[in-house]
């Protein structure tokens, strides 16, 4: 009797298992809704929330009063620690706790041993490790973990070889970085594996990968979330829970990376990653889902410059037409874009803005993570052009998906952002932490041989360049820079207040300097006394500020009020500019123009060229000293657009420029006692960009019928 039951069970269990698997197989591969009932059994692990908040006694220091005229809070919302798959490859061992300590002003250690410390603490910070494979590479390299015994983890064991923790292992490390994205990720469990079934029922593809240990992944995420909650100190210091959604297009490797910030202590049990989907539109769907459950998030694209023109395309990810639903969904979830960071600045490119003398600024023209470094198509990768394309899409009735505000951040992989030209450690730890490795001073003979060997070993072009001063490393790090910061105009230094500023786009970006800038538009701002103490509150009352729309009011011409203040530890201001973009009323053709609106040293703008005269500020390259007593501590003006037409869709954003100073590469050279490399910019002008104000004309009667005419303007 017992034997029979046992036998029955022995047959039934595998039979049921096989049946379930075959049903799942059908459900996945057969589009007919026969098994739609099955979908009801699925739970979505990416929407499972957990309250990570800590019980904390009230802070000892009283919370400062909120300022209704808003304060400028400086922060960095793009920081990697040892939990990022690549940071670990770069020799980084800094934890999220270390990162927040750094932001609060403590010194922490660079992988090469020197101390990294801020001149002045930051107001907010977010550790945003790569979501996919979070914590995983660290586990591969640690030979005591089970996962490290798997085949795919073997390349990473070598990382612990002492000889690999030298700054000379650049090529090998970079190679592992590139291969992770391509290779180890495709490693599914066999179809009959129990984890394949689990993955299906919890909508968690990660579980079906042999190269993935979900527990390791979740514990890394938990530690990141715990650290943010622990360091968050309302009123004094804000720490956001965050991570990076590290996606790219599958055809050209176009970088579509985004950082996701949470306005809560509650977070999903795991981040949504490129393993769930490489399509950013699915990320937004997930964000919408979280918002319905009471967890608000924003995502922030970065390195559009290295996207091969695919960050700000004129079509959707899958090549469909952009419509209003798409535009609204994108803007609901991504209100701000990172315009500047260590891997270059994405304001505009000299090819896109030939008439902008300041366009050639910290240009990084390679695709992110490509090997060998591969050219990235500028069009579609820069924010000014995206603003114009947004207007054009809007013109043809497709909505404006590119109506975003601006922030900067660092993208450091050492836990500590590098914002100062004269104290620069770049981004990727061992790879670029020393001057010779980042190409600012000549290489020694030994270093040249090492580089040649590695290049040969990994079938890469030899990445050196011969100059009069010697042979330099030419691995792309020369195009990186000491940038940038995100600045929010917020009532108080709390998660809510800063997050709301991001959503309102009341933000500006700087290249690491602490410039501050106010920007308003309205129809009666000229009546404000610029020397009055109530200047700001009046401007808020009478106008709109950065990130907002200025609606047509009886075809009046608007006034623009700008007020910029220099960084108290930085160079003086040289000029304030307003950059205008607009489209022709009859064809949607994009145009742009840069106006100087305020000059330092009492100089005035030339009414024909719209340029300030030279203020005479100079840099001495021998020692990087700058001319004293030239430039402004603040610049303030009300400006009117000389070419204003009330019927034209346009946007206006501010660019504030400092007097020139030495670039980091010149500082490296000066310190090493050599002349700066001849093919790099010796100096640069630190700057800030405000989010734009969009001018919205009265509704037009024109019916636009773009060629093709089949665009669905409603829901997709």
């Amino acid at each position, binding site marked *: 009797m017992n034997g029979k039951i046992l036998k029955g069970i022995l047959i039934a269990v595998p039979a049921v298992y096989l049946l379930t698997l075959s049903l799942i197989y059908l459900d996945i591969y057969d589009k007919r809704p026969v098994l739609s009932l099955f979908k009801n059994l699925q739970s979505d692990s990416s929407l499972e929330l957990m309250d990570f908040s*800590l019980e*904390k*006694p*009230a*802070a*000892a*220091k*009283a919370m*400062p*009063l909120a*300022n209704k*005229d808003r*304060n400028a809070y400086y922060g960095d919302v793009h920081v990697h620690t040892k939990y990022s798959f690549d940071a670990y490859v770069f020799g980084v*061992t800094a934890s999220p*706790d270390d990162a927040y300590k750094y932001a609060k002003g403590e010194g922490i250690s660079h992988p090469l*041993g020197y101390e990294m410390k801020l001149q*002045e*603490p930051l107001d907010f910070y977010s550790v945003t490790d790569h979501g996919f494979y979070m914590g995983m590479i660290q586990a591969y390299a640690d030979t005591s973990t089970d996962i490290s015994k798997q*085949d*795919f983890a*073997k*390349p990473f*064991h*070598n990382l*612990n070889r*002492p*000889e690999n*923790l*030298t700054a000379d292992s650049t090529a090998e490390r970079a*190679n*592992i970085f590139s*291969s992770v994205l*391509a*290779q*180890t990720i495709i490693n599914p469990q066999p179809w009959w594996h129990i984890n394949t079934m689990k993955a299906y029922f919890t909508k968690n593809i990660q579980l079906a990968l042999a190269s993935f240990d979900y527990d390791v992944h979740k514990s890394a995420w938990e530690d990141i979330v715990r650290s943010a909650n*622990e360091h968050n100190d309302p009123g004094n210091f804000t720490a956001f829970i965050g991570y990076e959604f590290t996606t790219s297009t599958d055809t050209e490797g176009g970088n579509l990376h985004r950082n996701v910030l949470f306005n809560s202590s509650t977070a999903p049990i795991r981040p949504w990653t490129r393993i769930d989907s490489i399509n950013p539109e699915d990320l937004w769907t997930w964000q919408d889902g979280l918002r319905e459950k009471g967890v608000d998030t924003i995502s922030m694209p970065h390195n559009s410059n290295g996207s091969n023109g695919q960050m700000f395309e004129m079509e959707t990810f899958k090549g469909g037409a952009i419509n209003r639903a798409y535009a609204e969904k994108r803007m609901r979830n991504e209100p701000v874009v990172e315009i500047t960071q260590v891997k270059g600045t994405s304001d505009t490119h000299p090819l896109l803005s030939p008439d902008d003398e300041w366009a050639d600024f910290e240009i990084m023209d390679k695709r992110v993570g490509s090997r060998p470094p591969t050219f990235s198509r500028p069009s579609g990768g820069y924010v000014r052009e995206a603003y114009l394309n947004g207007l054009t899409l809007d013109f043809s009735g497709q909505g404006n998906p590119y109506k975003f505000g601006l922030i900067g951040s660092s993208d450091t992989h050492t836990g500590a952002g590098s914002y100062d030209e004269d104290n620069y450690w770049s981004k990727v730890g061992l790879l670029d932490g020393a001057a010779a490795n980042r190409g600012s001073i000549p290489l020694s003979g030994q270093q040249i041989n090492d580089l040649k060997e590695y290049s040969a070993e*990994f*079938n890469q072009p030899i990445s050196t360049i011969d100059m009069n001063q010697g042979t330099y490393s030419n691995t792309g790090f020369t195009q990186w820079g000491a940038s940038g910061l995100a600045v929010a105009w917020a009532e108080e230094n709390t998660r809510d207040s800063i997050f709301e500023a991001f959503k309102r786009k009341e933000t500006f970006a700087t290249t690491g300097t602490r410039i*501050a800038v*106010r920007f308003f538009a309205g129809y009666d701002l000229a009546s404000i006394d*610029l*020397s*009055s*103490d*109530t*200047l*700001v509150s009046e401007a808020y009352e009478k106008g709109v500020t950065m990130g907002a729309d200025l609606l047509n009011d009886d075809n009046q011409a608007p006034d623009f009020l700008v*007020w910029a*203040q*220099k960084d*108290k*530890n930085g160079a003086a201001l040289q000029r304030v500019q307003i950059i205008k973009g607009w489209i022709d009323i009859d064809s949607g053709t994009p145009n742009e123009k840069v106006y100087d609106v305020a000059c330092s040293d009492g100089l005035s703008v030339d009414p024909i060229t719209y340029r300030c005269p030279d203020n005479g500020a100079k840099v001495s390259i021998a020692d990087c000293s700058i001319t004293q007593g030239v430039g*402004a*501590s*603040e*610049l303030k003006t009300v400006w009117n657009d000389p070419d204003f037409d009330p019927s034209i869709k346009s946007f206006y954003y501010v660019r504030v420029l400092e007097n020139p100073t030495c670039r980091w590469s010149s500082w490296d050279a000066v310190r090493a006692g050599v002349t700066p490399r001849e093919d790099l910019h010796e100096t640069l002008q630190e700057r800030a960009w405000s989010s734009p104000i969009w001018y919205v004309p009265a509704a037009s009667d024109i019916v636009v019928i773009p060629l093709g005419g089949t665009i669905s303007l409603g829901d997709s």
Partner: protein
Amino acid sequence: MKSKITVFFIIGLLIYLIDIGFNSDQNTKDIFISDQEITSLISAWKSQVGRNPTDDEISRIISNLVEEEILYREALLLGLDREDRIIKRRLAQKITFLKQESMADIPSNKDLTDFYTSNKEKYYIQPTYTFKHYFFSAENNSEERSNIAFKKVINNNQAIKSDPFFLGKSFSDNNLDEISGNFGRQFALNFNQVKLNQWVGPYKSSFGHHIVFVIYSKSGYYPEIAQVLKQVEVDLISFNKEAAVSNYIDQIKSEYKVIINPNLKFDE
């Protein structure tokens, strides 16, 4: 029963002795390469190149491995590892992490109190100042204008024509770090001995000159431990981690003798 155990014991002992016998004359110049090592190299090769290595390539990989091992051993024999700063630092780092990981206990209340008492300075709440100011922009002759204004204001003449300051006119409960963040370090120093309820200055900042009226000031104090408990806990845990390493070093330091040339001179 007993005899069986004895038999097993004797067999075990024999195996052990034989093993020792064989290993004792093992040549130190043997290089043993396991199947696993080779397959892992091949998979590393595969993940970097994107295809399986050919036979030629496999034999090159293996001969590279052998050569590397030989060079590694010869380097060890020559003591090259001992002179390499990077190798030294990495090994030191590895043992540091090992020692730190072994010390992750949750501290007791007594530990916390003790730690707080001996590190009180760290939790000191700085004095704060609530003040207003007249600002004279460096863009507009700030030194002269502020001096004139100061004379007016101390004579109760309220008709002061100053400039708007970017961060506003009034500041409440700013500590010295915040003042220095808002105005610059030099300016903040003036607050160390500032007089209350009267106009003082003009003080120079990074932006111009200011005349300042401190309305009130809260003196600094040491908070109750309950107010900062969480912070104390975080600090104690990280302190313990560091202490684990330094204790370890202290324990074995005595076994080492450090010799430094007392007569060393170095030229500039």
